[in-house]
């Protein structure tokens, strides 16, 4: 049954990714400028432009161009950057480590903070702790990540001098410097994520806490913590994990901004640089990559439901 469900879910992602691919392809065609002319540069002759157009296949019918482009993507060829004059895949490979480190660090931090926060808020439902957590969560949605980022830099890097102001150090060059430079950006980026997860955790836990089996568990004298972890959290897990998956969209948007604030040479910074330089192949590749990651993570989230809650059968 699970395999059949897996197959059905995989097939369902095909039309979604097809829409994304079509959209990303059209992105390049919708531009006012001629890509061939952009690549050729300012001093190119008409013959140069025509030659590049032929090389890129821009003189063929648009449907054929789309087919060629899709074929290239399937073979892992995302084209060549107009601006950096390199293969886009190589460009992305260079930039993936900082972004991945930042994202993983943020998710871990956010979950470690948000889930206990949400549980406490639900446990002390209606108390000042609950109201504070809810207020912080609305606040977290409203304060933009760059304002949080600059505030953190000002307090912890400039005023207190505890952490480096900006920059990134590769993991290979030493773990200390790597983690030191990741702390502030991860904290800044995790705020909105914490707000989202804490909110849904609270709601989800509140719902489960009224269940009969929780009352029974308490009645038989089980300690509060055991009730929370074994009975409440287990049953409240599905919505929480769902939101963590959906929140990846917020995270990706936040990565772009955070990397700019903290001068981290990752995919987010690459996206902004590519847009500023009108480097469409790179913009296309990054949008396609991020969307694919988002869709795949949510597919994975769907599949974890059976492990989290054995009652769910497909």
């Amino acid at each position, binding site marked *: 049954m699970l395999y059949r469900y897996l197959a059905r879910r995989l097939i369902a992602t095909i*039309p*979604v*990714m*097809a*829409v*994304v691919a*079509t*959209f*990303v392809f059209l*992105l390049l065609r*919708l*531009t*006012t400028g001629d890509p061939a002319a952009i690549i050729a540069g300012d001093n190119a002759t008409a013959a140069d432009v025509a030659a590049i157009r032929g090389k890129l296949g821009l003189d063929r019918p648009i449907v054929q161009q789309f087919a060629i482009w899709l074929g290239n993507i399937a073979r892992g060829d995302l084209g060549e950057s107009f601006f950096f004059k390199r293969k886009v895949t190589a460009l992305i490979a260079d930039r993936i480590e900082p972004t991945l480190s930042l994202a993983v660090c943020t998710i871990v931090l956010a979950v470690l903070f948000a889930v206990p926060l949400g549980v406490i808020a639900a446990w002390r439902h209606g108390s000042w702790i609950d109201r504070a957590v809810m207020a912080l969560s*609305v*606040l977290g*949605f*409203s*304060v*933009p990540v*760059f*304002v949080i980022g*600059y*505030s953190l*830099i*000002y307090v912890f890097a*400039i005023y207190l001098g505890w952490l480096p*102001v900006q920059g990134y150090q590769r993991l290979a060059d030493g773990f200390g410097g790597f983690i030191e430079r990741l702390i502030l950006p991860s904290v800044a980026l995790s705020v909105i994520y914490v707000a*989202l997860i804490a*909110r*849904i955790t609270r*709601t989800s836990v509140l719902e489960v806490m009224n269940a009969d089996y929780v009352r029974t568990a308490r009645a038989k004298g089980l300690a509060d913590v055991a009730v929370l972890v074994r009975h409440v959290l287990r049953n409240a897990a599905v919505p929480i994990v769902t*939101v963590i998956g*959906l929140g*990846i*969209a*917020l995270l*990706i*948007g*936040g990565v*772009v*901004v955070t990397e*700019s604030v903290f001068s981290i040479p990752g995919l987010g910074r690459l*996206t*902004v640089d*590519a*847009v*500023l330089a*009108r480097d*469409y192949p790179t*913009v296309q590749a*990054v*949008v396609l990559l*991020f*969307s694919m990651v*988002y*869709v795949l993570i949510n597919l994975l989230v769907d599949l974890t439901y059976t492990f989290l809650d054995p009652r769910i059968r497909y």
Partner: protein
Amino acid sequence: MKAAVARPAPLGVLGADAPARRGVARRIVRNKSVVLGGAVLAVVVAIALLAPVLGTGDPAQINPVARNKVPGAESSVRQADGTAARVTHWMGTDSLGRDIYSRVIYGARISLVVGVTVALISASIGLVIGVVAGYLRWLDGFVMRIMDGLMSIPAILLAIALVSLASAGLRTVIIAIVIPEVPRVVRLVRAVVLSIREEAYVEAAVALGAPTPALLARHVLPNTVAPLVVQATFICASAILVEAILSFLGIGIPPEVPTWGNIMAEGRALFRIFPHNILFPGVFLAVTVLAVNMLGDGLRDMLDPRMSKRL
């Protein structure tokens, strides 16, 4: 973004009878979130409207002798008649000598225009597509697949990619923010339409031979109003944030226009020495978005108790 999480349930018919409506007015006053959010928002709107008379100067005026002043500093500004006047820069000046206070106050205009316009446009487009998708079964699958596809591109990323297509400006930014928001509205409206179709009174109206336009106007559209208003409020908050983000990244509204994002982008280079260039617009931005979000939260609790229990 929050819309992806909250799958709003349809509402009971709102405004169907007078006593219920009077109840709504009373509940608005009683809801702290709505009152507080609304009050703060009213202040921001007043600031935007009254910007020229709030002791501001020309927000675009460059003054080379008054560059990078700290908050509270004074400088002399040459008037049109040739005399010099002393001006106090309550929030300091930026690296071109422009008065931050004037820029922040005028910046409220752009933020509110973007927020309200994006909310109205995406709610209208989403309403039309949502009703059509919910009503015409043969179109539903096709339309919803396109919406699913659009929704699987993270919103800010989609907006960033879209602004790269056209020249920078207010209109480009608004369109770039509207497109990622539309699918979320479509989903909401379609869900309401689908559930209304199942209601007994709609079946009865169909059986009595009510024409489709009348059916839509009498039964379907009134039911979409409340969830749409709530959704539009959240879209407004998110649009203000995204505009600031785009401007901050240098790909939104042209840098000479005073927007909160642009002021912060300007302040980036000298942030370590003059943090006020980022602090003041940042506080205004956060407070405004917070007010709109609180208004939205309050309206949601008020208009749809079922939805508030879910999130």
